[in-house]
């Protein structure tokens, strides 16, 4: 047989011509293997992302074949690079325009915490304006690290409950950031 590794099916009850499992698990499986990222690349980490997308590290084998620059059609906001205070409102606007379900990954030291730029003009981490799911440290992180961060997002997506976006806890989280 061929060497291609296939995704494992979730736990369930199998019989002749049917497979019964929880809807959450199937939807999570499908979503996690076709996340469309929005590459919000501002600086050096963006060049490492270009290297990750290239033929050597091949990001699209994880399902991100189509990076979308339109927020409406993207699932995952990948913030790569320094976000200055002038850029903060722009980032917030892009996040608000994304449709649920949406995840955010902060790639690099600057997006996670301001990095080496502890100055008056740099936002010390994008979690000042939007909620973040996964932080990838590094300056810039190696492509392997970016892929590892993406795999952690895939784990989050796989195990997320379908009700999460309507829950009070999520609404409180968004309210903390002033997003409806």
């Amino acid at each position: 047989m061929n060497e291609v590794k296939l995704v494992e099916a979730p736990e369930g009850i199998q019989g002749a011509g049917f497979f019964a499992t929880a809807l959450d698990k199937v939807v999570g499986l499908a979503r996690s293997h076709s996340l469309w990222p929005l590459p919000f690349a501002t600086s050096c980490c963006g060049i490492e992302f270009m290297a990750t997308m290239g033929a050597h590290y091949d990001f699209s084998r994880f399902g991100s074949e189509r990076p979308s620059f339109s927020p409406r059609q993207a699932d995952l906001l990948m913030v790569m690079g320094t976000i200055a205070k002038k850029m903060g409102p722009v980032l917030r606007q892009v996040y608000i325009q994304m449709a649920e379900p949406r995840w955010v990954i902060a790639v690099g030291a600057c997006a996670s915490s301001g990095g080496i730029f502890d100055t008056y003009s740099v936002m010390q981490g994008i979690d000042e304006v939007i909620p973040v799911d996964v932080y990838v440290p590094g300056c810039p992180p190696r492509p392997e690290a970016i892929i590892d961060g993406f795999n952690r997002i895939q784990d989050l997506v796989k195990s997320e409950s379908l009700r999460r976006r309507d829950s009070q806890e999520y609404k409180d989280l968004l309210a903390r950031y002033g997003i409806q």
Partner: protein
Amino acid sequence: MEEAMIEKIKSTFSTAIKNISDPHELITLEVDSNKIIEILQFLKQDPEMGFNYLTDICGIHYPENKGSELGVIYHLHNLVKNIRIRLKTFISSDQPHISTATKVYPGANWMERETYDFYGIIFDGHPDLRRILNVDDMVAFPLRKEFPLEDPNRKDKKDEFFGR
């Protein structure tokens, strides 16, 4: 070659030149801020000078020199004879006005905007003098020595751990 040029500049603008020095073999003239545009025009258009390339304009702040705290520094380059020259001029921070160099060198446009953004030096006659790199509603001029580097309102880093 260079001696003759310096002599010609000195003889044409004798009153405006306050100091001539040569740090690391780059001729540096400290000139009067009222005459700077005339000098730039002379350096560009006089056939013996020929400084047709404006390399850079930047600002500097010396808070101890009362009356001439803010400085504007021009670097010019004669591409044919390969000679560089630096012009420095100082103005007071109460009245930080100086004429724009955009009529002589159109490339001075953004360089002067950046100097205004960082130091608050107002270039009279500039077509579009507004902030370029910092946020538009900032009031202070960040590269002056009294402005702090870090944002004092950030909550996640405690200054006592960083020795501040």
